């Protein structure tokens, strides 16, 4: 590698964004870069945090990183990696994995890892079933949490049943339960995921060794599940389109239709309308709990909370149904194709021994892959959208109590600050006085909102610090796609003509088109037919927009990134893991996406 001695900009060289010098007030002291952090490699986690992070949303870095490290470093004792550290600068999250390089320590950890990981790999399917039940339990719990009303006079039952505890107590207890459940959900999220990546990375790297030219997506294709839960929400929309046509109510689902108006009109359309509404109700639980984002920001709402995304996709599916197109995914064909590809590569191996090893590795990768593909629906989508919805209810209460001006303001406060605001409310209710919070938090919230707007304009460097000695963490390689090659690409990007962006060739083909650069999931409605989507990262629920676009480009993502998977599904070129496409490409520019080589060229 030509990486020797190369260094990306150092953390200490990053200057405060002018006009947002006070960004540190939004984040906790343990997220700040320290002087000694200059000696280590960090990369911008643009996959999960493409936008500046509001104070409350730091919970989606704080909690996941407490869970991931606990899993790899302490629970399963991965031999060569501890956990992931994170830092926030100018509102962006940078992370690094702490590798273990001492052979004696690796040896020692391996013994424990073998025993513990062996238990999970050995019982994977039944543990996964149990895992789903545990997640369903957590989802039930978060949905059931009540945000207490603070009545002028307590309910009589509290007295006559000798409860002895007033409602203001539950304000804090129930808020804490939300945070605690979120933490538990993330512990479960990582419970099987890191082992999943571990098993996949073994097969992946064997394939890369045996077939140096094999595209990443081909390795994924050999393992990929056919009945993937993340495809279900989109499949449900197709089903609803079919029902609409069958019931002759499809005329209501026109381009640009408004969800509320459609629902009202359906109710007036007799039996057909009722049937369609029943089909919709059936689809909504659980499939409309899918997030419009990937659950790392409070504004990633579920389809259930905001029907705009599904109702934007429906008219197109209705048109296709009318045109007699089959919207069914050809699952038998996909399955046969997956088997053929695996058999062909297997046959190209040079010895029976290699073929036997290949069978073992592929078998294990296929065992873990359903979890790797599907866990997100339970965690980041269903659980997390319910979590944020519950926090909003606390926001409503703080509005009613005069602490906040509007519900969404709660997300400008760190969860420890919400603790303070709730104490304020608990005290005021108890004393019969007014909470003081609006005077304290009012200016703070206004300033933070202003700073977040300013910070949006900052283009974070893809990486900071010296090139690392090792990239041991399987998630860093497989999920974030950070490999020696990625680093070389990013390093090379420091000095080309500025007209090319390089990344992974994620889905083959070459097309030209007009770029649509999205910096936030909320802008998804702006995408026009035939445009080329350029974004930090795509989420599974964006599948409907893939029906409109010609190609996809993302800042971050590896073999298993959703942009890659969905682009292949739709047969369009995709280049992922470019590091900085959203910085370099502007909406309206003509670009050529070369999904064969992994190059995006700005043509003008």
């Amino acid at each position: 590698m030509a990486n020797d001695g190369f260094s990306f900009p150092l953390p200490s060289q990053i200057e405060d964004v002018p006009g947002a010098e006070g960004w540190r007030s939004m984040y906790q002291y343990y997220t700040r870069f320290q002087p000694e952090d200059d000696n280590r490699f960090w990369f911008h986690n643009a996959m999960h945090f493409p936008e500046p992070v509001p104070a409350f949303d730091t919970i989606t870095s704080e909690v996941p990183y407490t869970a991931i490290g606990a899993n790899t470093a302490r629970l399963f004792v991965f031999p060569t990696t501890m956990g992931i550290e994170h830092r926030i600068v100018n509102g962006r999250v940078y992370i690094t994995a702490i590798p273990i390089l001492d052979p004696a320590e690796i040896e020692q950890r391996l013994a424990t890892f073998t025993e513990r990981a062996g238990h999970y790999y050995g019982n994977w399917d039944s543990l996964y079933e149990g895992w789903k039940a545990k997640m369903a339990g957590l989802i039930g719990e978060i949905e059931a949490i009540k945000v207490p009303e603070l009545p002028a006079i307590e309910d009589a039952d509290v007295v006559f049943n000798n409860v002895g505890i007033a409602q203001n107590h539950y304000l804090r207890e129930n808020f804490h339960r939300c945070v605690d459940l979120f933490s538990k959900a993330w512990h479960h999220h990582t419970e099987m995921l890191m082992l999943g990546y571990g098993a996949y990375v073994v097969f992946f790297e064997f394939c890369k060794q045996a077939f140096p030219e094999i595209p990443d997506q081909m390795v994924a294709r050999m393992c990929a599940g056919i009945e993937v839960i993340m495809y279900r929400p989109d499949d449900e929309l197709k089903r609803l389109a079919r029902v609409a046509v069958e019931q002759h109510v499809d005329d209501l689902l026109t381009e640009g239709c408004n969800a509320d108006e459609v629902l009202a009109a359906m109710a007036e359309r007799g039996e057909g309308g009722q049937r369609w509404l029943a089909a919709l109700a059936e689809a909504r639980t659980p499939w409309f709990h899918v997030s419009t984002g990937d659950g790392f920001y409070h504004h990633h709402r579920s389809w259930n909370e905001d029907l705009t995304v599904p109702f934007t996709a429906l008219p197109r599916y209705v048109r296709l149904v009318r045109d007699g197109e089959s919207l069914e995914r050809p699952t038998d064909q996909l399955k046969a194709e997956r088997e053929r590809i695996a058999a062909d590569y297997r046959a190209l191996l040079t010895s029976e021994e290699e073929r036997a090893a290949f069978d073992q590795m592929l078998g294990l990768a296929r065992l873990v892959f359903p979890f790797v593909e599907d866990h997100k629906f339970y965690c980041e989508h269903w659980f997390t959208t319910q979590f944020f919805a519950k926090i909003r209810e606390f926001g409503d209460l703080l509005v009613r109590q005069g602490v906040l001006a509007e519900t969404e303001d709660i997300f400008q406060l760190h969860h420890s600050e919400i603790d303070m605001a709730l104490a304020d409310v608990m005290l005021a209710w108890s004393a019969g006085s007014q909470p003081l919070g609006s005077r304290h938090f009012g200016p703070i919230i206004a300033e933070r909102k202003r700073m977040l707007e300013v910070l949006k304009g900052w283009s974070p460097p893809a990486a900071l610090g010296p090139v690392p000695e090792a990239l041991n963490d399987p998630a860093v390689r497989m999920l974030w796609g950070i490999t020696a090659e990625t680093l070389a690409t990013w390093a090379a990007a420091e000095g080309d003509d500025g007209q090319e962006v390089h990344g992974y060739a994620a889905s083959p083909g070459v097309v030209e088109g007009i770029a649509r650069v999205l910096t936030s999931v909320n802008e998804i409605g702006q995408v026009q037919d035939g445009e080329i989507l350029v974004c930090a990262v795509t989420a599974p629920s964006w599948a409907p927009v893939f029906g409109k676009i010609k190609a996809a480009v993302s800042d971050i993502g590896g073999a298993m990134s959703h942009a890659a998977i969905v682009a292949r599904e739709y047969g369009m070129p995709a280049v992922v893991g470019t590091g900085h496409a959203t910085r370099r490409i502007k909406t309206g520019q003509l670009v050529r996406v070369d999904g064969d080589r992994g190059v995006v060229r700005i043509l003008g």
Partner: protein
Amino acid sequence: MAPGGLVCTLRAVGAADREVAGGKGASLGELHRAGLPVPPGFVVAVPAFRRAMRAADPAGAIEADIAALTGLDIAAIERATADIRARIVAAPLPAEVAAAVSIAYEALGTDVPVAVRSSAVGEDAAEASFAGLQDTYLWVRGAVAVLDHVRRCWASLYNAEAVSYRLRQSMPEHDVAMAVVVQQMVDPRSAGVMFTCSPTTGDRSVVAIEGSWGLGSVLVGGEVTPDSFVVSKVTGEIVRRVVAEKPRLHRMAPEGSGTTVAEVPAELRSRPCLSDEEVRALARLGARVERHYGTPQDIEWAVTGEEIVLLQSRAETVWSSRTGEPLARPKARPMDHVFEQLSRPVLTRGDD
């Protein structure tokens, strides 16, 4: 025209006939037999070479001249071989050889332009050292010209590089022989080479294709950077594609014989010389040839627009000869692979 005669048709020879048809001739015959697209043609076989050499050099003077050389005296080799080549080219052909070649040529059609290509006999390494388009004459037209170029091919057996190679290897001179392939000329829109494994990594799951506008000689001679395509044998997808700037091409000379260099029209220079369809079709042909031989191949091809033809196929030698340890062996349990791999640090600054 069966093997054994002075001349035999391409389809009459196969891989087993290297001693009479030379490596190239045998290989083309074999491709023909396997049903692969090869331009029609014939081989001027080794007996014709022997007959002609006996006539040109009845006293065995050539062998004696070479025996007097040493592998180190380059200037002496240059002088002696130039003289030998001049004698071979100038010597009148035995009538029965001239007649056999002329009849075979006329059987291809009237005044058909042909490629006249040397096809050396000998061990692989020796053949490889003679291989290349310097021993191939394109756009040859008319029986007289064909006969003339057949002699030039024979003479190329005595070019300085070949002779000094044989001297260094102490190869006996009386074993060397040269067949000549005469093949109907194709007028390629694009041409090039392909490897049925990756030439850079040895990956057997891909076919690597390089091509340029016009005749393949422009590419083999290194005069342009070719377009390059990597195609997955498994899915048929083009997994990598680099389209190069190709300012020059080789094509038929205006006077109708020989080749000339021309400029590629500006609008074509940075356009791919093959359509995706052609790239995939070539890769499929390459995979068929490999399956036929059971080992990776190095193939020359040409595309006319209507058809794809193969001009040569030989065994790929660099990667195929490598036999290493298996990359992995089965373990007691599948998960043991994970334990092994996750206990190995992944260094960013490895040996490579």
